[in-house]
């Protein structure tokens, strides 16, 4: 069955230098796509992402840029199209997380969270859609979070939760706007995932709680987000748009 084949597709992945974005960039290449990989200048892992994609025999492009800057995104999309071909898959993963009690949170911290996690996704979608819409073909996937649907007990991250809820609704809104012009827009909401952030010794105790609270009894491996991303990017999801695909080991069901 080649419903999931992405051969010949050109993908752009933001936040491709680490964590979920890095794994999904490689995952799209495993499914056959050529992938442009965007992260901030100086990213520790972006070179590795590009090397892993090239090792799969796919074409990869390293792009430096900031998703809060529309001009960076426009430049990234243009370079992606010039070097790899017409953009047909976009995976917007760039995001940040941190925690502070709401009553103590400086306004700048709130603004920065919204700026990266929400404005960054909007500006990415906008830059990507501007080249996809005239061709009437493209799939956009935004990484939200289960924290956009539920509130994580004990985690002081009102700004993060709000930003992710907004990403989910933004995705649905764009799905509606662009539905009659060949674009599909969906979001993926991971649950607790074993990224470098969650593998540090200082969060070991919290991680035990995360695992206990998850019906499947563990955190997701980033590998387990590849299937959902490839599905939404591929022909297999040709009638799927405006959906938030929660990949959480059952967390939100109880």
């Amino acid at each position: 069955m080649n419903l999931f084949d992405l051969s010949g597709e050109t993908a752009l992945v933001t936040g491709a230098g680490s964590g979920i974005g890095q794994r999904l960039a490689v995952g799209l290449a495993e499914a056959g796509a050529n992938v442009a990989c965007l992260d901030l200048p100086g990213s520790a892992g972006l070179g590795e992402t590009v090397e892993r994609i090239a090792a799969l025999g796919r074409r990869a492009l390293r792009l430096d840029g900031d998703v809060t800057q529309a001009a960076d995104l426009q430049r990234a999309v243009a370079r992606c199209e010039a070097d790899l071909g017409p953009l047909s898959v976009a995976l917007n993963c760039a995001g940040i997380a941190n925690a502070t009690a709401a009553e103590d949170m400086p306004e700048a911290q709130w603004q920065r969270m919204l700026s990266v996690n929400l404005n960054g996704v909007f500006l990415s979608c906008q830059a990507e859609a501007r080249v996809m819409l005239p061709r009437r073909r493209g799939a956009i996937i935004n990484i939200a979070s289960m924290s956009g649907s539920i509130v994580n007990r004990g985690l002081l991250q009102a700004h993060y939760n709000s930003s992710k809820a907004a990403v989910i609704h933004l995705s649905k809104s764009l799905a509606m706007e662009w539905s009659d012009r060949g674009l599909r827009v969906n979001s993926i909401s991971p649950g607790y995932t074993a990224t470098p952030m969650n593998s540090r010794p200082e969060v070991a105790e919290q991680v035990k709680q995360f695992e206990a609270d998850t019906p499947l009894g563990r955190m997701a491996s980033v590998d387990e987000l590849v299937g959902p991303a490839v599905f939404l990017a591929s022909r297999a999801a040709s009638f799927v748009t405006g959906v938030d695909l929660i990949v959480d080991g059952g967390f939100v069901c109880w």
Partner: protein
Amino acid sequence: MKRFEGKVALVTGGSRGIGQAIAERFAAEGARVCVAANEESVHATAEAMRRTGATVVSVVVDVTRKDEVQAMYERVAQELGEVDISVQNAGVITVARLEDMTEAEWDKILAVNTKGVFLCCQEAALRMRRGGKKGRLINTASGQARQGFIYTPHYAASKFGVLGITQSLAKELAPTGITVNAFCPGIIATDMWQYNDAAWGKLLGNYQPGELMAEWVANIPMGRAGTGADVAGLVAFLASDDAAYITGQTINVDGGMFMS
């Protein structure tokens, strides 16, 4: 096991000179490292370190801007984990006679060398304290924090200021186990000293390039200029578990130029 395995170290002014040597030392001893500087060449410094197998993030930052400093530590947390060791090393100098010293020059040196050190210490310490980390703040002062040199009142003031910040924060943070120390490099063979040699040389007499520095180095008891590696060894010690009971101190690393 390497001394800094599992640790995250950040070094401002990390693109060249002393900062680069410190960053390389941390990486060689197993730390994940952020090199930060107010110049794009910091990315090339990081790339060279990555070729040795190190995990390195590079950030272009203006340490005089609080928003940029906060964003830098946030980015490090995202990509490497929360910072364990923060080295406030970014510094600038000019050399000018009293009548030629501009107000802008004064403000700039104080902003980078003193305010910049404070802003980085502030953000790093708040994060360390929030995470219950017994972190390390290490500030680059100078021989000019022991004795002002001629034609650099702004630089001397800025570096004496670094000692004040170090001692004050060391007291405030002592109960948390976060230590704050400073070090005073003497004459170190870096780009900055190439500038110093030329700038002081012009004002102090008819010196050819290298002559003034050679004259000053001749007065150092150990008879040679220092290297980045000389400084990095001290900084690595201050950052290590062995230095857990040392705080609020300022240590000279200058071949005996100043003895305390």
